[in-house]
């Protein structure tokens, strides 16, 4: 009886957005009288930080610092329609809608600034710090604060914009299955290293090295939180979790976190996250949706590592000590 070490690899891709489309999200953007910007959505922040990302996307597009953007979301009396936060679609779909709305608002903002500065709007640019400058003559400028005041109280303009992003629905062809199931795909490759105790069947994930290609990391810190969390969830899925431990038997299902097993702090693998960026043609600033796919490659990587360690295949999830021991026993009997 011994502790045996193994490693396994898995490579995957993952579609962004509601499969087969019919997948709309809308956004509204408007300026307050003093040049702050409101993004109005009905999208839901599940804790992943959608509000923050939408603020950064809006700020980038209008050309102001992120702290001048406020996101008001998930109120059906004010927010325009969003299909919902699922299918790795939030950043991609709502982000595109926000860009379109912000572009329209930016155009009005530049037109008002042009009237104030007596130049053409096409000759203006933003400095990202809250000012609008004449290209090539930055000494001629006006603050966005003043532009917004002018729009509201002098020029009678609404600095606002409407955004809509829709992936039209694709119907699968009945016989061949020809279809357009998605817009862009994220990618991943994971290498997991495990130790398996062939006496107890216990698996310890030592290291997990994840490479994710996500189009564009719109906020690298938030991408990191999502990818690390996803990697943990994948390991948990591989080795621990089920509501029906003896599926298809319905008995013995956990009803609280004492019975429903997940890895605790002492079970965390040494986790490495590497991000590649191949900007997607249709993503907001090239982003794809990494929300779901980041929890997938660890599962087969761990399964393959267990085989590499002890030479038995566990083809039923989760890969519990019981299943490993039964497989080892069957292997020894042969």
């Amino acid at each position, binding site marked *: 009886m011994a502790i045996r070490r193994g490693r396994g690899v898995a490579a995957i891709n993952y579609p962004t957005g509601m499969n087969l489309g019919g997948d709309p999200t809308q956004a509204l953007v408007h300026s307050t009288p003093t040049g702050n910007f409101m993004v109005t959505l009905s999208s839901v922040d599940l804790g992943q930080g959608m509000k923050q990302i939408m603020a*950064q996307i809006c700020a980038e597009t209008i050309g102001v610092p992120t702290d001048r953007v406020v996101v008001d979301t998930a109120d059906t009396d004010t927010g325009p329609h969003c299909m*919902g936060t699922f299918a790795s679609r939030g950043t991609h779909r709502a982000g595109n809608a926000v860009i379109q709305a912000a572009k329209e608002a930016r155009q009005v903002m530049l037109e008002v600034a042009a009237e104030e500065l007596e130049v053409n709007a096409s000759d203006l640019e933003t400095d990202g710090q809250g000012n609008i400058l004449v290209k090539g003559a930055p000494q001629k400028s006006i603050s966005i604060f003043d532009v917004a005041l002018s729009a509201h109280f002098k020029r009678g303009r609404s600095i606002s914009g409407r955004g809509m992003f829709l992936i039209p629905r694709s119907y699968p062809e009945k016989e061949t299955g020809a279809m357009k199931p998605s817009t862009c795909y994220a990618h991943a490759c994971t290498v997991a290293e495990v130790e398996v105790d062939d006496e107890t069947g216990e698996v310890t994930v030592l290291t997990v090295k994840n490479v994710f290609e996500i189009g564009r990391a719109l906020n690298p810190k938030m991408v990191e939180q999502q990818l690390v969390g996803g990697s943990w969830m994948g390991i948990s899925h591989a080795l621990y979790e089920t509501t029906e431990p003896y599926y298809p038997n319905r008995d013995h299902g956990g*009803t609280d976190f004492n019975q429903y097993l997940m890895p605790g702090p002492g079970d965390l693998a040494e986790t490495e996250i590497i991000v590649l960026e191949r900007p997607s043609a249709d993503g907001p600033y090239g982003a794809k949706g990494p929300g779901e796919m980041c929890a997938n490659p660890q599962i087969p990587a761990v399964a393959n590592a267990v085989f590499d360690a002890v030479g038995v295949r566990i083809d039923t999830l989760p890969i519990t000590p019981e299943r490993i021991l039964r497989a080892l026993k069957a292997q020894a009997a042969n």
Partner: protein
Amino acid sequence: MELRKNYFADVRKDDLHEVGQPRPRSDSPGHVTGKTAFFADRNFPGMLHLKMVRSPHHHARIRSIDTSEAEKHPGVVKVLTAKDVPHNVYTILILIQIGPEDETVLADGKVRWKGEAVVAVLAETERAAQEAAAKVKVDYEVLPAVFDMEEALKPGAPLVNEYHGRNYYLYDSGECRKVRFGDVEAGFAGADHILEQSYQSSPIEHAPTETTGCVVVPEGNDRFTCYTNTQAMFFTLDNASIILQMPGSKLHFVGGTVGGGFGGKVDVIVEPIAILGAKLTGRPVSFIYSREEEMQISSPRAAEKVVIKDGVMKDGRIIARKVTGYTDAGAYSRHSPYGAQKGAGHYPGPYTIPNVWIDTYCVYTNRTPSSAMRGFGVTIGDFALEVQMDRLARLIGMDPLEFRFINAYRDGDMKAHRQPTEGAALIECMQEASRAANWPVAEKYMAMSSYVKGA
């Protein structure tokens, strides 16, 4: 985390100011200091608590329901049964024209899974609601149940759901969603090796920090405000509007601050019945799942069975792949017909294979209805595909990572569902994994690219 900018350097630019910056999250301080308001932080004078009477049987006919003792229980304000729900038989994907309506808000004549909602009790306190729920008498005639997907598909199996009339979802393509590409049998005939293997998963729980729930307030203007942690505001509002036969203009949903979803909060279960309770009592209503309900009543990720048959050449090329996928929907559709279909669009994985045959089935059994979860329709498929890839590599004596390079899809490659590959990056992910994990592969693989040759 490390951002490796040397890959795709020709197409990625560092010309942005706000995007790409690691700005602190504006909502983090509220989350970590306990100041963020979640739906359950709303408390209203006179608020009632809703508890469900649930089926103790996997499959049973309801002979009678007696709520008289429960109604007399101190603190009970209202007891609801199927006849109180205006449009009791519903299905959530009807909004995108995927029927039939196959599920009841409150069981009517029959229960099809253990835990199904039968009677809703509204009381002044959670305790009173719970105690009264225990006093509801339901007379059941237990029926044979089926739990195993293969058993469910056999002739003569107990019928799980009469609204379907068969134990699988009927697509326009027939009993399964199909993809046909090339000639899979010819591929097998020409292969050096054939490998067929079956993979199985068990249901799992989303395990959000915050359980599913909502608080509904009847407003003075004849509207209802629903504070909810749904993942999809209008999807839930529009389904509630159908179930309650109430114009959408009467409904105001407020949400967007959620303690974890992972797909577990897109089923439209708590909101319609809580709104109905608020309407019939004129009082605010709170309906929040216990942890036990979250784990055993709310939809889990479906158990899936995936059978993969591959034809592979000694040089490492996969020339034929046949995948048969089964999704255990449990007793009702919810999002499962969509999930099974999503699987059909995902197989045969990120590999270019000339001959592909895919069938994905959505199967009904007498268990907790499954539904969306992170990686819906794909996660279990990837487990099966990638373990299969490992097996195939070892079968032909090839390094598992190198084997994947040989088959990896690249820009322009035609996928089985007849879309050309765009924006591929699998090869580059594997190259970086090779480096990071000190798992060397031959130089020719490190020199590969996802780009179209010469483009």
